[in-house]
Every structure is written in structure tokens, then in C-alpha cells.
């Protein structure tokens, strides 16, 4: 009986590590592109938008990932359209729109689930999460790899990229869509408040230690995975909530990376 329970426990812990690690890898990889595109702030604030979607999912009892993703998708399309149609800088739009969403989300989320929604709870994973998370992360990473050339180029010069007949707006839209997917998945690990950090910190550390683009994107993904896995292990050892420890692990990796900064 004891043996059965301990096996059951380690099974869940193992699941947490795989799912958390995969999300960390995906978040680090997409974060590499977000940092280059100076979207660090957007990424951070964007994760807050998921909260009202999550709240609705909890209230009406449907899959929280679907709720979070829908809210993120609406926000991203909104920003994408407003940026093209108005001259309001996206930072301002993000500042207004996303923090308002956070406020709305806090009001809507049922009190018992609020802490979990804000800071994540990977302790709650089930085998089903594995079957959903791994293929989605794999697909997003493959798609991202496929559009990595125009993404990198358009970061340097939009006109140069468009002059090569590359549909920059479509590529941007696809990219934002992938950001929404990764952030929606990552909320399970770090919650809506801290998900931005899982996207930004590993990539910032990866940038410090890389000279080439391929090394940078690879290291960002690896460091994302390391941050997530080490955070979950430490939280498990000392009985903390994993989300904040995942972010703290990332922060530590960033500090260490400063020692190896490429000049």
C-alpha cells in the first residue's frame, strides 16, 4: 500500500517534470524571438490577459487552457488590429488593455481558485495534460523554426523583409498566435502573474551567453527547460508552490549568465 502510494506520488511528480520541462523549453524558445522583437514587456503583461478567460472557464466549467487561450487570442488580435489602424504605441495599448483585463479577471475568478490562477499549480496535472501539452509544444516549436528566418529578418528591417516578398504581417500574426498558445499552456506552471517571466528570463540569459542566432535560440529553450525542472524539483523538496520557484530558478540562471556575457 505504502509502495503504491509512493509510486503514485512519483508518477505525478514525473508528470510535473515532463510537462513543466516541455513548457519551459517552449517558453524559452519563443521568448528568444520575443526579446529580439523587444516584446519583453508585452510578453509579461500579455500573460495577465489570460486571467479573465481562466475565470470564465472556472465559472462555466470548461477547459482552463481553452479559456486562457481564447482570452489571449482576442487580446492579441485586438492589439494587432489596433496597432495597424491607429497610431497609439503598442506599449500604451498593452498597458491599458492588459492591466484592465487583470483587474477584471481578479474580480471574476472564484476566490478559492484565485491563488492557483495567479501563481499556477502544476501539482494538479493529470496524464491527459501530457497528451495535450507535448504535441502542442512540439508543433509550435516546429512552426516557429519554419518562420524563424523571416522573423529574425523582419526584426532587423521590416522593409528589407517585405521587399523580399515575405508576408511580414501574416508572419507576425502567426507568431503572436504561437505566443498565445505557449502562454496559455504555461499558466499551468507559473500562473498568469508570472508566466511572462518564464518567457523572458531564459531568453535574456540565453542572449548573454550566445554569439550566434542558432546557439541563442537553442540555449534559450534549454535554459527555459532547466528553470522549469529545477524550480519544480526545489518546490517539491521544500513544499513550496512551484510557480514562483520556477521563476526564481530562471532569475538565478540569468545572474549566472551575466558572468559569461559575450562582449
Amino acid at each position, binding site marked *: 500500500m505504502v509502495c503504491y502510494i509512493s509510486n503514485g506520488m512519483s508518477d505525478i511528480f514525473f508528470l510535473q517534470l515532463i510537462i513543466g520541462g516541455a513548457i519551459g523549453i517552449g517558453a524559452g524558445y519563443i521568448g528568444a524571438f520575443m526579446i*529580439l522583437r523587444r516584446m519583453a514587456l508585452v510578453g509579461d503583461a500579455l500573460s495577465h490577459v489570460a486571467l479573465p478567460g481562466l475565470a470564465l472557464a472556472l465559472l462555466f466549467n470548461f477547459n482552463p487552457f481553452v479559456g486562457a487561450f481564447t482570452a489571449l487570442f482576442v487580446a492579441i488580435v485586438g492589439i494587432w488590429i489596433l496597432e495597424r489602424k491607429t497610431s497609439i504605441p503598442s506599449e500604451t495599448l498593452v498597458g491599458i488593455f492588459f492591466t484592465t483585463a487583470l483587474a477584471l479577471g481578479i474580480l471574476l475568478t472564484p476566490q478559492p481558485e484565485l491563488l492557483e490562477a495567479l501563481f499556477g499549480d502544476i501539482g494538479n496535472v493529470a496524464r491527459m495534460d501530457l497528451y495535450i501539452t507535448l504535441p502542442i509544444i512540439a508543433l509550435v516549436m516546429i512552426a516557429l523554426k519554419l518562420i524563424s*528566418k523571416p522573423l*529574425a*529578418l523582419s*526584426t*532587423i*528591417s521590416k*522593409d*528589407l523583409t*517585405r*521587399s523580399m516578398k515575405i508576408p511580414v504581417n501574416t508572419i507576425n500574426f502567426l507568431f503572436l498566435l504561437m505566443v498565445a498558445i505557449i502562454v496559455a499552456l504555461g499558466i499551468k506552471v507559473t500562473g498568469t502573474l508570472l508566466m511572462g517571466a518564464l518567457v523572458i528570463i531564459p531568453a535574456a540569459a540565453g*542572449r548573454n551567453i*550566445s*554569439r*550566434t*542566432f*542558432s*546557439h*541563442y535560440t537553442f540555449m534559450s529553450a534549454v535554459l527555459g527547460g532547466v528553470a522549469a525542472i529545477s524550480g519544480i524539483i526545489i518546490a517539491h523538496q521544500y513544499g513550496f508552490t512551484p510557480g514562483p520557484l520556477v521563476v526564481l530558478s530562471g532569475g538565478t540562471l540569468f545572474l549566472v549568465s551575466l558572468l559569461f556575457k*559575450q562582449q
Partner: protein
Amino acid sequence: MELTSSILKVSHLNVTLDGQKILHDISFDLNRDDTVAVVGPNGAGKSVLFRALLGLIPYTGTIVWEKNIKINYIPQRFTIDSDFPLTVREFLNFKTKNHHTILSALRSVGITDEHHINHHLLNQRLGWLSGGQIQRVLIAWAIIDQPDVILFDEPTAGIDVGGEETIYHLIKKLKDEKDLTILIISHDLNVVYKYATTVLCLNKDMVCYGAPTDALDPSALKALYGEATFLTHDHQHK
């Protein structure tokens, strides 16, 4: 005869951006192998003309390029952070992975030392290069896939005077070696006289178009830059 060598026909081109008329009724033909200098004061619409020719912005009128023509473009503001993790090799690899093609393009822009290329330049971050070096790499990037036309938007912006001369000399050399039509935006009228076969003077309207010595007459210069600059120019060439 003239018609067959025309690579671009622009007629009654108008561009309005944010309610402001930027280009008004521009019409000209461009012949294959021409080097056209586009001159005009700041805000004359020179970069806008390029962006319209590339189909990057909405316009009225017609712009007809010869069929199946390959056009490359080097934009003016090509600033890359020094910590942007992209090497020269990776940047050129966006166009081709073929090392020999890369080497030959770099050779064409005057970077000939193969040891330096393989062990230093290609592994260097793009953002670490000097203004002149970036410009050479950009020109290599522009010629690497054998274009018919290259549009240069102020290729020497941010480069010192000596470097400027080298870049223009390089562009002329490339033009002589390859079958290239070149459009170039420049502030420097001396460059126009020295390197261009044709000049297009722009100040929202098209002020002049033709061979530099004919087209850049006193009235054209006055319409472009006003009285004061006309006098300065006059002084330089006496």
C-alpha cells in the same frame, strides 16, 4: 529600340500617407544598366519613392517593372544592436547556404582575404561591424542572388567621408562588372556627377530627370534646395 531596354515605367505616380501628399505626379522611364541618382532635400519623398517602387506602400498611378525582374533593396535605416545574436554567416545564410557563392559575393565587395573571411568576418556578430563593414556585407547580401536591379537608400549614411567614397566606388565597380541597374538615393551632388548616368530630382514633384549635367540646371537646383544651396553648389564646381 528605347522601349525594349526600358526596365521600369512609372507614370503619374502619386503617394499620400496619413492625408499628406508625399509624391505628386511622378513619371519616368528607367533603362537597363542605368545608374540613377535620386536627389532632393529632406522630406522630398525619396525613400517613399523607393518604397512605392517596391510595392511596400499604397499609391495611385502605374509602376510597371519588366517581367520576371529581380529587385533587391538596401534600406536606409539598417541599425542592428551590437548584442543582437546574429553572425555575418547566419545573415548571409538567409540568402544562400552555399559557401562559394558567399565567398564570391564578399570578394565582389572588396573583401578578398579568405582566411579573414572564414575565421573572423563570418563568425563575427553583424552588430559588431563598423558602418563601412556593415555596408559592404549588405551590398554582398544584395548581389548574392544575382539581381537585375538594386535600390540603395543612402548607402553611406553614418559612414565617414573616406568610407563614403569607397562605397560609391565599389557600387560603380559592381555595376561595371555585372549587368546591373542601380537606383541610389544620395545627398551628395558630387556623387551624382561622378557616378550617375541619370539624375531624378525630387521635391514631392519631379523637378528634373535626365543626364546630370543637363538636368541639374540652376532652376532645378533652386527648386530643390533654394537659393543658398544653389550658390554653394555653384561655388564647388567653378
